[in-house]
């Protein structure tokens, strides 16, 4: 029987960068791209099962598509307890949305500082090449400095599977390591130098 793991992924970033588009395209296997802008109020929860490559295991990804407008920020962080993963999105044609990523990350980390939190930085709207102001290099550097994976996409054109496909992988790893650790623990009670620092 395959193992099903659950992971809570916070999706955050400035308003209008395309968080909801990415989530909805991913959730519908690219069959639904919302053509009109609908402001997200609070948090929208989408659940998407993702198969882990080369295994029969599955991660049930709970996407917490969170409002980007500042007026909701207090309300939104209430839903962020016990996160497993984080995805910060910015718009490559909007410099401010890029610089604000740090602030969003800090907000997420302030909710749960003592658990490792794998995450990705996503540069959206790469189809608008003419208007692009944030270069891939800038994005990669920020991601590297924050220990995040870096991905570029355009919610209406590219399969988002790649980004989100990568994330649950980490969860699977995490679980494996955790179980390993439990196992080790039961064998060797005096174990002192094994690290729980996962990832």
């Amino acid at each position, binding site marked *: 029987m395959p193992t099903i793991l659950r992971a809570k992924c916070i999706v955050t970033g400035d308003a209008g960068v395309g968080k909801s588009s990415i989530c909805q395209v991913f959730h519908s296997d690219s069959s639904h791209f919302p053509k009109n802008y609908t402001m997200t109020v609070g948090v929208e929860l989408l659940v998407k099962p993702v198969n882990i490559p080369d295994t029969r295991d599955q991660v049930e990804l709970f996407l917490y598509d969170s409002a980007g407008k500042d007026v909701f920020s207090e309300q939104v962080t209430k839903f962020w307890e016990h996160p497993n993963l984080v995805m910060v999105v910015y718009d490559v044609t909007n410099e401010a949305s890029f610089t604000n990523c740090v602030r969003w990350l800090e907000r997420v980390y302030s909710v749960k500082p*003592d658990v490792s939190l794998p995450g990705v930085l996503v540069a959206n709207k790469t189809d608008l090449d003419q208007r692009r102001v944030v270069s891939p290099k800038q994005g990669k550097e920020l991601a590297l400095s924050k220990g995040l994976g870096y991905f570029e996409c355009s919610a209406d054109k590219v399969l988002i599977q790649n980004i989100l496909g990568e994330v649950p992988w980490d969860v699977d790893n995490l679980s494996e390591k955790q179980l390993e650790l439990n196992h080790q623990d039961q064998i060797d009670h005096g174990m002192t130098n094994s690290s729980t620092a996962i990832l």
Partner: protein
Amino acid sequence: MLDYASVKEGAQIVLSTSSDENHPPENIIDGLDETFWATTGLYPQEVIIRFKSPINISSVAISCFNVQKIALEGSEQDNSDKFVLLSEQEFDRDDHHKQNEEIRVEGNKQVHCLRLLITSGYDHFVAVYNVKVNGRG
């Protein structure tokens, strides 16, 4: 001492929120120290143990890993969703060892079903090795 929360004494797992086939919740009451119930992500997580008959719980010994906040709740009936809080605890973090905690239960309440509610952990996943219940049958 008699452990009421064991298969030997007729205890059963009647509900659990995680069920990894390699680490099923029944491992909590099998009396073995090396087998464990692993959660499969998200909080809260809960497991309900039903005893053969109602007992007066005096203490509950839990052996687990990475559990932060846990609540014990009891129900008098064998098939009820009305649980009353028996105790609420926050365990210390120990990255390398099992947490072995004994929780005293005051008030001499009759309990037929015991609910363990894990509301947070020190990692994404937690494990419960054993639950031993002392009391009077």
